[in-house]
Structure formats: structure tokens, C-alpha cells
């Protein structure tokens, strides 16, 4: 018993000191290296785990899908014959658009590469703060890539990538307290800053004091933002806070257009790339 007690005390002391050091220096190089090492070791867990679970549970469905896919394939082959014509039309419209932008002296249009990724991990303790998606460096993801979600056919801003692993990446949701996003009301051009509250709702601060915001108004990403493309739906106003005499701005509560708890898949906008045409 005494031997056990000595061991327990020594281990508590060692691990306790180590944990406290790590807590005190979260951004130091050794701590970041330790975190990277552990991430490297546990990153495959959600990735391969999801694959294994999906493979086992989805087998009967997969067979049924295979049969229906064959039928659908036949139909799509017929429809696909129209695509070359549509592509030609699109190319011509794009060229015309580039030409007009150039004549108006606007900056060249940027293009983004899209990537769908499945949500493979969530933590109930941090339900509205972050999630892990099945896409990593291999797919070209980079830190700060904007992440979107879809609900009922509508796309909305969800968060941004904060850590990129080899196979998976971590997405910081808009609802996290450390998240912020420049947004605006397109109809009136009032601009503000969406900030997370750690819960299901968002808060939009820094609106002009005389802004007449109504419940139900839609909030979109601002053209002045850097991370997100402009005019993406962020959410709808659910509450207008009473003006605070000590603050020089107005604030509203916003319900996200894509609630984080409904996310099964997300759309990640990969880093901006100028099109070859624009470069030339």
C-alpha cells in the first residue's frame, strides 16, 4: 500500500506539473509540437473509424443503391449529352463577364475550388464550438478555409478551418466565442460583426444605432470580409436587443441559417486561386 501511495503521489506530481506547464504555455513551440504529435497519432481514428462503421452498417443499403444506380446511370447518360452545349454557353458568358469587368476597372473575378466533406467527429461538451471533417492536407485544405453548410437546398456560412491534419481537419463553428464574421443586411447596407456565444444563437454587434432591423431580416456575409465570399446567407434576426446607452452601436440576435447540430456534411471552399485566364 505504501509503495502504491508513493507511486501515486509521484505520478500525480509529475503529470500535474506537466499539465500545468502545458496550460501555462499553450502557444510555446514544445507544447505545439506535443499537440501536433498527439494529433498525428489520433487523427486516423475518426477517419478510419468512420469508414469501418460505414462499411459495416451500409452494406445492405449499398446493394440496393447499386441496382438503382445502374438505372439512374442510364438516364444520366442521356442527359449528359446536353452538357457540352451548356459548357460552351457558360464559357462564353464567363468570357463576356471578364471582359466587362476589365472595362469597368474592377478586380478580376476569383474562383474557388469546392470540396464536400463529411462530419466525422463531434464533442457534446463543445457541440456549438467545433467539429472534425473528413478532409485534410491531401484534399488541399488550408487553415482559414471557409466552411459552408446546406439546409433545405440553401447554403449558409458555418465556420472556418482551424487545424488541418493529413486526413481530417478541425472546423471552428461560428457559434464559438472566438469566432467573428463581417456581415451585413444587403437591402440597407448596414454592416456589423457576427460573434459566437458558445450556444445555438449568434450575436451581431456594431450595427449603426439608427438601423431599423426587424425580426426575420436575413444577414449575409459582407463583401468587406476576407475569409468568406460575399453574400452568403449567415442567418436571420430573431431578436433586437434594447439599445444600451453606454454603447455606440446596436446589437441583434441571429439564428444561423444552417444550425450546427444539423450538419452531416459541409462544403469547404479551398484556397483562392486566380483562374488561368485571369492570370494570362
Amino acid at each position: 500500500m505504501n509503495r502504491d501511495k508513493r507511486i501515486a503521489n509521484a505520478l500525480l506530481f509529475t503529470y500535474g506539473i506537466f499539465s500545468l506547464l502545458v496550460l501555462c504555455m499553450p502557444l510555446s513551440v514544445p507544447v505545439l509540437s506535443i499537440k501536433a504529435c498527439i494529433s498525428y497519432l489520433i487523427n486516423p481514428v475518426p477517419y478510419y473509424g468512420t469508414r469501418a462503421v460505414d462499411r459495416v452498417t451500409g452494406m445492405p443499403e449499398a446493394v440496393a443503391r447499386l441496382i438503382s444506380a445502374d438505372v439512374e446511370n442510364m438516364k444520366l447518360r442521356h442527359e449528359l449529352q446536353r452538357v457540352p452545349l451548356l459548357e460552351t454557353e457558360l464559357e462564353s458568358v464567363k468570357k463576356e463577364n471578364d471582359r466587362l469587368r476589365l472595362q469597368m476597372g474592377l478586380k478580376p473575378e476569383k474562383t474557388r475550388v469546392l470540396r464536400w466533406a463529411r462530419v466525422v467527429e463531434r464533442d457534446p461538451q463543445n457541440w456549438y464550438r467545433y467539429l472534425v471533417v473528413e478532409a485534410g492536407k491531401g484534399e488541399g485544405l488550408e487553415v482559414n478555409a471557409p466552411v459552408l453548410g446546406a439546409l433545405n437546398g440553401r447554403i449558409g456560412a458555418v465556420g472556418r478551418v482551424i487545424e488541418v491534419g493529413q486526413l481530417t481537419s478541425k472546423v471552428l463553428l461560428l457559434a464559438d466565442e472566438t469566432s467573428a464574421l463581417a456581415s451585413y443586411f444587403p437591402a440597407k447596407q448596414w454592416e456589423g460583426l457576427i460573434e459566437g456565444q458558445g450556444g445555438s444563437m449568434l450575436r451581431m454587434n456594431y450595427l449603426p444605432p439608427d438601423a431599423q432591423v426587424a425580426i426575420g431580416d436575413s444577414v449575409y456575409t459582407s463583401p468587406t470580409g476576407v475569409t468568406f465570399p460575399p453574400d452568403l446567407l449567415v442567418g436571420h434576426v430573431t431578436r433586437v436587443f434594447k439599445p444600451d446607452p453606454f454603447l455606440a452601436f446596436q446589437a441583434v440576435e441571429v439564428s444561423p441559417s444552417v444550425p450546427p447540430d444539423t450538419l452531416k456534411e459541409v462544403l469547404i471552399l479551398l484556397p483562392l486561386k486566380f483562374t488561368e485566364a485571369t492570370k494570362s
Partner: protein
Amino acid sequence: MRYLRGVGVFVGAVLVQWWWPSRLPIFGFAPQVLLVMTIAAASTEVPAFSLTVAFLWGLVLDTIGVHLFGGNALALTGTAYLVWLVKRQADVSNPLSQAAFTGLISFGYALFLAALALVFKGEAYWPGWGSFFVTPVFNAIAAPIGFEMLRRYMKTPAHEAR
């Protein structure tokens, strides 16, 4: 052989911790599998094993999370030590007492983590009252299963368990 079993327990618990909340959340809640297993390990195993796995599980949780790296490692190590200290006074031999014991410790664990975050980050990162009250209940329900699985898998002799 026992060391290999220990490694198996460690990896298995990490897999369940990933699988349960991601795949089987109930009303958005799930038990904190690693906390439950820490309590079970500290109640039935020698402190060298229980404190080490608790610390490593904590580091895993910290790596998965985005705030307060090291917080879970400290909290789980502390939990393992505390459970080891009080296990002679507390009866954790039947499922009901295991559930009650785990539920109580879960409240303390959540409060300790919030306090740590407040001290080191200036913000509690409070998971919400729903999570605060429901998760310990889930932990309590999962506790007898965790205790039984650990006992069977590790084949702990009775004289070592005490």
C-alpha cells in the same frame, strides 16, 4: 500480457469516446466515456496504471478540443488520484453505487474544468446547464458497463483491486 491488455483498454476507450458522441448522441448528449473509464480504472486497478491512462486520455481529449490544452489531462489525472484515495471509504462494488459515485464525480469534473478555463483563459467555456445536468446522468448510466467491461477485460484479481 497485462501491459498489452492495458494498451487495449486505452485504445478501446478512445475509440468508444469517438464513436458514441459522433454516431449515437441521444438528444445531443453522450456520456464522457474517458471520464467513466478513468473512474473505473482508478477504482479497480493499481494507481500506476490508472493515473497514467487517465493522463494520456486527458491529453487525447485536449487534442480533440480547441480550448485549454492540458486541462483535461490535469482534471482526469486528479480524478484518478482522488478516486484511488477514496475508494477504500466508498463502496464501488455494485452497479448502483458505481453509478452514483460516477455521477457525483462528473459534476465536480465539469466544475473543475470550467474553473480551470476561467483561471487560464479568463472564460469558463461553459457547456450549458443542459449538458451540465444531463451528461453526469449519462455517465452514471454508462458507469456500471464501464466497470464491468474493465474488470472482465483486465481480469483484475480481487486482492489487487482493493
